[in-house]
């Protein structure tokens, strides 16, 4: 078998430290089961994509890791401790950017350091560095209202990184962007991740985005939301979307996802 894929967590990775451990996590809203019995271990500094159509509970799972919502049953552990609520150690990037519109780009990025009580000069120095890292040097004093969607998401990524979290949670971060901006940001995301190793959990419904980015793709099932299949990828980076292996994997996952979409009954 060439480049990639073993369908269960590979034995070779067992020596790596488990960063996020999801054990029998369930989420119910009244009678509706949004997420059923998820068991998942994510390794430190790995890049995981949660992939599935809307309604598969991928965002719910991400929100449980972030601490925005608690599982109805089971546990979410980060570094062996149950997640109680949001924390500065788990940075979140949202699809809708969630920038503070009354703060300039640099003040948005400096938000985390400010909360930590760092001196003003230090806050600005950190914020400036991360803005430069996401390619926004020179845009420091602009308000979010004056930035394009792609630039806003760059600021949001810089803001999450400036806090130096060990986990970076991204909820369809490029979902609202046009195709070109999206691909550029995917490439930059990888470049940043090589540089600032974090445990990344990235929610998406784009198969090609997931294959382009991830070490591990968790394909989710719908009704109820659950883990359907896990792919561990060892395609070398940078990945080429026209590569035979890339295309083959894309087809395979597409079939899986299509089956889940059909279960929803709306096509």
């Amino acid at each position, binding site marked *: 078998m060439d480049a990639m894929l073993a369908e269960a967590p590979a034995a070779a990775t067992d020596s790596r430290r488990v960063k996020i451990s999801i054990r029998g996590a369930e989420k119910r809203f009244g009678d509706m089961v949004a997420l059923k019995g998820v068991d998942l271990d994510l390794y430190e500094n790995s890049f995981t994509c949660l992939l599935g159509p809307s309604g598969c509970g991928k965002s719910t799972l991400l929100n449980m890791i972030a*601490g925005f919502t608690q599982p109805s049953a089971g546990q979410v552990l980060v570094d062996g401790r149950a997640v109680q609520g949001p924390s500065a150690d788990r940075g979140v990037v949202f699809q809708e950017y969630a920038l*503070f519109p009354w703060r300039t780009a640099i003040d948005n990025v400096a938000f985390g350091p400010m909360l930590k009580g760092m001196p003003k000069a230090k806050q600005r120095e950190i914020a400036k560095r991360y803005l430069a890292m996401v390619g926004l040097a020179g845009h420091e004093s602009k308000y*979010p*209202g004056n930035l394009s969607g792609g630039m806003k998401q760059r600021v949001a990524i810089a803001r999450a990184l400036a806090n130096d979290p060990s986990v970076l949670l991204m909820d369809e971060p490029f979902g609202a962007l046009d195709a070109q901006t999206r691909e550029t940001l995917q490439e930059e995301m990888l470049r940043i991740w090589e540089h600032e190793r974090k445990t990344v959990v990235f929610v998406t419904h784009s198969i090609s985005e997931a294959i382009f980015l991830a070490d591990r793709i968790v394909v989710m099932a719908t009704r109820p939301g659950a883990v359907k299949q896990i792919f561990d990828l060892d395609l070398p980076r940078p990945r080429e979307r026209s590569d035979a292996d890339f295309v083959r994997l894309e087809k395979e996952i597409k079939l899986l996802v299509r089956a889940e979409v059909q279960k929803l009954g709306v096509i």
Partner: protein
Amino acid sequence: MSAEWRKRLSTGGMRCVAILLFLAIWFVVSMGNAHWWKFFNPVLLPTPIEVVKAGIAAWQSGELQDNILASMARVLQGFAIAAIAGVVVGLAVGTWRPLERLVEPMIELLRPIPPLAFLPMMVLWFGIGEMSKIAFIAYAAFFPVFTTTVEGIKYVDPVLLRAASSLGASRADLFRHVVLPAATPSIITGLRLGFGLSFFVIVAAEFIAADSGLGYMINDARTFFMVSQMLLGAVVIGLIGFGVNILLRSVEGWLLRWRVATRG
């Protein structure tokens, strides 16, 4: 000259033309009536020039300044009380649900009653001195400030709260760094409405129980059938309101410069 400036200049020009046109119509109607048509007693509608003359006379006697100061002092004191009370109570009610359930029905009960309905009561309680007028303004201006503050807090985008808490914000941080700045635009709108209302009600209060102020001046002029002076009172109130609104808008523009940026 940039296109934006040209646009600004031309809208400014249009405004001047509109004001001049208004004055011209007023002038033609009153002059025409006095000299040619004689539809009504010319005393009833003095020309703008006569109003200006009345203004100069009132200024020279010092009466005009005294009345302006008296009204402004009442408005400022009453409005200051309303602003502080409205924002503080609004913030408390907006952040603390049990308090909201307690206070909201009371407010909703009182709000539809025109504040003027309470004016005689206020005079009864606080006497005919300054206190009754200040309390009356404070009461009237409280509602818009309070309501917009509560609304502003209620509609803070929840994703901003999530973003801040994932960056390590405590409850106090959330309030100070997210809720408060997010609610600022609507609080400012409330303050502007409240200030307008203060002006609105002070004149009525001064009609009823006062021996100074612009409302008193208008009412006093009515007793002596000095129509120019009655109009003068109205014009001065209009000019002050206009000026104050420009001032408040520029303060608003500065405080909310990020929002102006969004529009630009």
